[in-house]
């Protein structure tokens, strides 16, 4: 579904065609559900939060900026819902706070030979789970969802340079876990 097709569908939704929104849900249910799984580690919570994300997006469709891709906006809504949920559950053992990034802050100068060749899927998943959510989601959006750097920034409500930084740090940490 390209942006033009997406815009046509959203126009029909706004004209009162509720069923057209089903095409949007089908297209993005998988990445949003997986976002919630990563955030909550609970299939039940992930389902509830994902559905709430789509319902909230529908109810706030008048705030969506015409011409933009729908997914970064939807993802941003989902991230905020997930963070609110975690705060309310007082489960915010926020890894971004307790995670010591400093040990991964190395200079990019100098000789640093390649250390990775093949990576096991399970091993990668475990390493991704160890990352702070900020870095992990930036990596997922950039490489798994194939978003541009600007779209990653939009989805995470940060600047483009902030998005680049999160991705760079995320890759560094991931490399450290897997080396």
């Amino acid at each position, binding site marked *: 579904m390209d942006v033009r097709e997406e815009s046509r569908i959203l126009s029909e939704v706004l004209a009162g065609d509720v069923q057209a929104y089903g095409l949007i849900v089908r297209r993005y249910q*998988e990445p949003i*559900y997986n976002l919630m799984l990563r955030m909550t580690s609970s299939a039940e919570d992930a389902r509830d939060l994902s559905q709430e994300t789509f319902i909230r997006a529908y109810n706030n469709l008048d705030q969506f900026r015409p011409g933009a891709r729908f997914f970064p906006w939807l993802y941003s809504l989902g991230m905020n819902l997930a963070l609110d949920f975690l705060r309310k559950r007082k489960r915010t053992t926020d890894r971004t706070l307790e995670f010591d990034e400093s040990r991964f802050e190395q200079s990019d100068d100098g000789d640093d030979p390649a250390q990775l060749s093949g990576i096991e899927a399970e091993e990668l998943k475990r390493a*991704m789970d160890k990352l702070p959510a900020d870095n992990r989601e930036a990596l997922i959006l950039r490489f*798994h969802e194939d978003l541009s750097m600007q779209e990653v920034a939009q989805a995470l409500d940060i600047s483009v340079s902030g998005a680049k930084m999160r991705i760079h740090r995320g890759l560094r940490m991931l490399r450290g876990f897997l080396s």
Partner: protein
Amino acid sequence: MRRYREMDTDNLPEGLAHDFAVLGRAIAVMPDVLPPADFLAGVMGQLQPKSAPWWRRALIRFSAPSLNLSPLQLVPAGVAAAAVLLACLFWGYGTEPAGTVAGVAVKPGLAKVAFTLNLPQARNVALVGNFNDWSPAGFEMSRDERSGQWTITVPLDSGRHEYAFLVDYERMVPDPGAVIRHADGFGNVNSVLVVDAKHARTT
């Protein structure tokens, strides 16, 4: 096969750049978990039909990048007051031959209707209405270099037509001199034109 974005590794040491590329590819092909089978039904069952104003629907639909339009932004209705109408409507005599004018199929019995907007500072203006599904494509107006007026002539069927001017692909401006206006219920006003092609009259 899933595509993946390469990292910008221009300023990285070779070993690091290599590892980052390996990680990017690995993340790209990570397996996803499928949502439950009743996921879609659970969402759709909680939605009520929307009734957004026509201009909102038109902006979303026709601001997709593939149409090369800038992202649209709405402006207060007060902007319309800046536009001065020098509109004149003239109607054709007899019938039009079969053909296409400004994207509208011309059928016998259509009236030619000229729309004019005096807005010299505009970079471009297009006519949108229910007769072209609020699409500016093919309905761009021409600017008179001396007067700064924007004009377009289109063949219209008999009946009631709602329309507005899309200025700089950014804002909708109703025709300030339209005889009939119609509030859309969302704080906006459409211009209304009634065409009587049979007797070559417009109201």
